[in-house]
């Protein structure tokens, strides 16, 4: 599904990713952990194609295609979804209007018919239930005045609506209360499937109790320094990053 090889990327002239290699087969959920500033969000932006994130070396293949050659909206249409660490507000544009425009532009790019208002609303109600998003929030302006937790829940609602083949969740768990964490995780788990891969960026093992990963990677200084099964997350939780940092330096 996703194959990243020796990826180097710069932001504002500064090297952030320095030879990152990672493969996520179809149907798997991989977690990425790592200290603050190690490059996790940078990786998610590079994969989504954000301006200013300059790839200097390496390659990213997604479903057999060169992901780096595509515009952000083309990546979205081909199934890449990023749940933002800091979701952005768009005042005056209702959540539903935004999603309908998004969904229909993706469908259009894929050569599918646009959904009419009734079809769209039916889908939206269904998916809102999945993440227990209140109808009031669906109608409000995109992330405008949303609480931190509401924004994160809204990201998962959008993911459920757009049904991506690769979902990158950047710290979706931070800011969620205990109930919300469970609800959001249920939402994510409901979307797991053989044709869908996920990259879950998190700082906390507790998310991985809910969303059980196939593989856990540790990102330090722009490189994957260790990979393992879910036990690795537990180990990190106990011992911190010092040991892996030391290993990486060695």
């Amino acid at each position: 599904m996703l194959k990243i090889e020796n990826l180097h990327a710069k932001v504002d002239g500064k090297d952030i990713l320095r030879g990152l290699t990672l493969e996520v087969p179809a149907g798997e959920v991989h977690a990425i952990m790592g200290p603050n500033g190690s490059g996790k969000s940078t990786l998610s932006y590079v994969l989504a194609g954000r301006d200013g994130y300059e790839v200097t070396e390496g390659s990213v293949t997604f479903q057999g295609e060169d992901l780096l050659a595509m515009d952000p909206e083309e990546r979205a249409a081909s199934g890449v979804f990023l749940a933002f660490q800091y979701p952005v507000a768009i005042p005056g544009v209702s959540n539903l209007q935004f999603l309908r425009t998004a969904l229909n532009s993706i469908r259009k790019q894929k050569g599918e018919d646009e959904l009419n208002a009734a079809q769209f609303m039916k889908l939206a109600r269904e998916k809102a239930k999945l993440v227990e998003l209140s109808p009031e929030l669906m109608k409000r302006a995109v992330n405008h005045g949303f609480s931190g937790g509401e924004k994160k829940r809204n990201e998962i609602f959008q993911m459920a609506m757009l049904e991506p083949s690769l979902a990158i969740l950047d710290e979706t768990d931070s800011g969620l209360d205990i109930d919300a964490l469970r609800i959001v995780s249920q939402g994510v788990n409901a979307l797991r499937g053989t044709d869908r891969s996920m990259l879950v960026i998190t700082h906390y093992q507790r998310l991985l109790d809910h969303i059980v990963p196939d593989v856990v990677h540790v990102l330090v200084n722009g490189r994957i320094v260790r990979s393992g099964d879910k036990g690795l997350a537990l180990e990190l939780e106990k011992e911190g990053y010092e040991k892996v940092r030391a290993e990486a330096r060695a």
Partner: protein
Amino acid sequence: MTETAPQDAAITEALSRKYDAGFITEIEQDQAPPGLDENTVRFISAKKKEPEWLLEWRLEAFRRWQKMKEPRWAKVDYPAIDYQAISYWAAPKSDADRPKSLDEVDPKLLETYEKLGIPLHEREALAGVAVDAVFDSVSVHTSFRERLAEVGVIFCSFSEAVQEHPELVRKYLGKVVPTTDNFFVALNSAVFSDGSFVYIPPGVRCPMELSTYFRINAANTGQFERTLVIADRGAYVSYLEGCTAPQRDENQLHAAVVELIAHEDAEIKYSTVQNWYPGDETGKGGIYNFVTKRGLCDGDRSKISWTQVETGSAVTWKYPSCILKGDDSVGEFYSVALSNHAQQADTGTKMIHLGKRTRSTIISKGISAGRGQQTYRGGVRIGRGAEGARNYTQCDSLLIGSECGAHTVPYVEVRNPTAQLEHEATTSKIGEDQLFYCRQRGLSEEDAVSLIVNGFAKQVLDELPMEFAVEAQKLLGVSLEGAVG
């Protein structure tokens, strides 16, 4: 307050947009030679078989105009206009025998509306809108007249009103905007060719939205519209004005005058979507739009609201205003103005509070892209007698790219200590983070800009009648095509 957006590589490029309404209809014109003197004024008045008093009124305005100077205080920059190079009279040839129904309308003309996406018959059927279409200087099509006549509403071209309801015209013409108000008003008063007239009798709620489409067509023809809307005691009317013009190389002058009068308990809602040719990327060839619009809340508890979406013209100079004379009267101004490429807009409103407990609301949304320059100029005046008057002003600017500018010039004059005024202003720019967020969800950059801009303007668009709001939304998108690259 002056702000310019910082450099943003993603949105500085390619401000290349083609004007959708840029075509010219070939209809034979009955046109006067260029030039302006007393004879021109007499010629126009005679052509229109006007009564003596109106000719005198025009001549008086003309004499005053000759002594006046073109105003230059607005923050707009354009080459000097040669008023002697303009032709002041043009009428479609078919005017002599006016069509009784759509079937009789010049097919070329209908085609023109078709191209603009405003087919008359469809609008009539779908929206129940009565349309008084002004093509160049003479009104050529009026519909739903009979239905309106049943309830006593008069909706006709200005020239018809002069012939058929001279007492009303004479009573109200120039009462809100005196001929000497400013240079362009004096000019308009001298040479106005036609326009619309609306009278709603006491207690009548006009059964449909009234609408007019203006177009400027003939080369070198100045357009001088005159609109007069009167809502008598307890009456209500919603009037829609929309316009667009074909592509031209020479700048065309438009100096309209709109007067609104609301008597006791009456309400007038006046909405405008303005989409005249803005000129090419360098500003060459656009329309100069110098308009004077003013409403008088004459009676107690009367209300006037102006809603405008301004996307066109090379230069816009426009300040729809309210004189709140009646006690408890209400004035509102909702505006979206967009300037892209080399467009310049200096627009705003004036709220003049004279009566007790008068209230006014001003919501202005300015959008600048390309090298567009935008000035909000707003005045709030509270007179000595305006006990307990209140004003709320909100003035937001949105910048797209790094070469445009937004400026806010508020004037406030308070002569009664019991008045309450509130003013809020914000300037923001379309953020790279917003654009990226939208694109990550599958929107193209242009759709993203259009969505964000429509969100920004929502508060104002919500004030427009339904069918107009949809059109206005489309227009904002079209006007910004190529604003990001």
